[in-house]
């Protein structure tokens, strides 16, 4: 077993593109769920809104990449309004039903044959991110190595931009949540009736929270598709939403830095386990494959089994996550 390789992969993942993308997405979800108590079970829809806001602008309208980034925000705002207006006056679980339905509907719609001229259908969209990589100070095809980390120049450029965005947005969320607006959100999470009786328009605050978090989710979607260089409708399936939930709960909801911590923990664990399993000796692999069917494909699927089990156990035994505090816990009351 090549431990050097395993640790290189694990360390490189720890601050790699996946961590940035999922931390950004979890930051958006943190505003929804952690601070406001909104049950957004379709967060991946916001990522899709961002991705297709960019993709459709470039692919169908032939607009500039940078205008596409603006459209990504517009799409996420429209989506948040469509989801929020009918449901935010109702009990929390209705938002859950509608958001999960919306995220699946969006995925099925954009991959359909009818939408193919606009969204690229099931094949998706590629070749839209050149203007971004043109700005790269790194050699796109070259490997850069420092300490235990090793990245392609292309990824390194995404990482520099991604981490800058992530840290700036995290600082922004931290400040906003200390401001009166953020306090009002938390008051609504704790006791909506009390907040209302103090003259806060809970409905308006919830819509604003949905818009704000959704926009950050869209940023995550944009970073993801720019990093991959292609937009695939099936990449936006509900299990991604719940991976983000798991990351948020691991880190502890309602804490500004928890999305980053959760994302690092989740991804390094997954990549470490997967690489160890893939590096087992051929005989061991064969035995495992013939007894518990541990094939290459199944090693890839195992992360979702972990997500499911992890969510189940965390929600049951430690809803405040590893770093969270019980007082700041939206899952606890009601």
């Amino acid at each position, binding site marked *: 077993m090549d431990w050097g390789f395993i640790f290189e992969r694990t360390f490189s993942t720890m601050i790699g593109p996946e961590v940035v993308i999922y931390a950004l997405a979890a930051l958006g979800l943190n505003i929804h769920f952690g601070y406001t108590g909104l*049950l957004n*079970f379709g967060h991946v829809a916001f990522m899709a809104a961002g991705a297709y806001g960019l993709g459709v602008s470039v692919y169908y309208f032939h607009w500039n990449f940078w205008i596409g980034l603006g459209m990504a925000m517009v799409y996420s705002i429209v989506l948040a309004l*469509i989801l929020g*207006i*009918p*449901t935010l*006056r*109702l*009990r*929390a*679980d*209705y938002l*859950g*039903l*509608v958001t*999960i*339905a*919306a995220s*699946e*509907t969006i995925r*099925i*719609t954009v991959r*359909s*044959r*009818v939408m193919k001229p606009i969204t690229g259908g099931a094949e998706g969209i590629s070749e839209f991110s050149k203007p971004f990589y043109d700005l790269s100070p790194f050699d796109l095809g070259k490997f850069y190595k420092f300490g235990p980390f090793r990245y392609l120049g292309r990824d390194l450029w995404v990482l520099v931009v991604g981490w800058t965005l992530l840290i700036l947005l995290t600082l922004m969320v931290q400040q906003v949540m200390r401001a009166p607006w953020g306090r009002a959100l938390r008051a609504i999470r704790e006791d909506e009736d009390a907040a209302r009786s103090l003259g806060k328009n809970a409905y308006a605050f919830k819509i604003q929270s949905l818009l704000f978090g959704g926009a950050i989710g869209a940023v995550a979607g944009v970073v993801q598709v720019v990093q991959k260089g292609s937009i695939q409708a099936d990449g936006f399936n509900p*299990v991604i939403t*719940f991976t983000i*939930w798991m990351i948020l*709960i691991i880190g502890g909801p309602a804490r500004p830095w928890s999305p980053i911590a959760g994302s690092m923990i989740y991804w390094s664990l997954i990549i470490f386990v997967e690489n160890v399993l893939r590096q087992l000796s051929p005989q061991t692999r064969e035995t495992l494959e013939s007894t518990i*069917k541990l094939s290459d*494909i*199944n090693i890839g*699927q*195992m992360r*979702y*089994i972990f*997500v*499911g*089990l*992890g*969510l*189940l*156990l*965390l*929600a*049951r035994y430690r*809803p405040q996550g590893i770093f969270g505090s019980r007082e700041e816990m*939206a*899952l*606890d*009351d*009601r």
Partner: protein
Amino acid sequence: MNLADRPQTINKIFVFALIGLFLGLFGVSRVSADDADLGISGQLKYKSSTGETVFVSGATVSVDGLESVTTDEKGSFRIPVPGPGEYRISLDTASLPDTVSLKDATKNFLNVNLSTDKDQVVIFSLQDGSAAVASESRFALRRVVQLSVEGIKFGLYLALASVGLSLIFGTTGLVNFAHAELVTFGNLMGFFFNYYGLAGAIGFLAPLPAPLGSGSNLIVAAALTMIAGGILGYGLNRFIFRPARRSGVSLLAQMVMTIGGSILLRYIFLYFFTGGTRAYRSYSAQRANEFLGIYLTPKDIASMIVCVVILLVIGFGLKRTRSGRAMRAVSDNRDLSESSGIDVEKVISQVWTTGAALASLAGIFFGLDAVTWESGFRVLLFVFASVTLGGLGTAFGALFGALIVGLVINLSTLFIDVELKNMMALLVLVVVLMFKPQGLFGRKERIG
């Protein structure tokens, strides 16, 4: 029959059932090796007026009950099928370019008898120019009736899947996101019992007669599946959600638990069953018979009748039997029914058991068309739309909601593309929540 009074026996039964389940899934996973790679293929082309051969790309060809495919730039298509049998393959004439039509407009479907172990090639004869005879209009009465009947069929299946979800919500306040996985469980266990019987996956037990060793008839398999589903539902409540309720885990946290459970089960199914589509050993492919211009396979008719009977039994049970009344009472007002002497925990346990058994039966019905690891997840949105439309927590609401959703979804294909019919589920949800959030049968109360 108070099972809950003997927790230890039940624990043992449950553990054995769980072991059985995993052995079962393990056995299922071995089938894939001897699946022959069968398919129906063909090429759409015609001679243009100048005499050159033109390939038709982007046309939709489908096999009843299986997937539909689009022809590629060479006009070729191939639809994989699960095994030998009779298939009805149809060409969607609306998807042809305007300048092309069928030589005989009534021949937009072909019946294929697949007996060999290699691909069957089918030919649709096309001609240049638009249809000579006026093809059937979009809103032809025959088409509307056909879609309505299919809608009712889908609605009946949905109703079976929805009742449990609605009653679980009514009695515990929990939206069970894992309900779709109970449907998939039925879908897959039906396949397992159909091929292996109760224990055929364990080598030395395989020679035993059906339903122990070898595979059993699908009807016996359905009965076994309902029992297995009931055990799973009972176990989920007894070992996961009842302890959670007792130790004061909030409803929101429980909802996240159901999501975790749903993903866990779904990917365990995928792990053992793999991603392909399979079919039950019997009834998988049947020729559709024409009856007053409506095409239905015998299995469709039989399953619709069975569904209606079962739904009537459920309705009667809820209205007339003691435990059915208790279920509705607890759904209606938990505190009031507890103080009037109803054992609420027992009712919840019954609701989980019957709800899961019915969901697995729905899984068998969906499995008549296709057996896959995500068959339940595919209908989850429709189930949500049904229970919301009927009113969360009302059993009869779920039944009627499901029928309406089934009809709406199928009839919507008169106006929109088949692939987009999923959108209707979301539309129903949003419209209901905007204008009548308590649903058709729900009591008007503040749910904000």
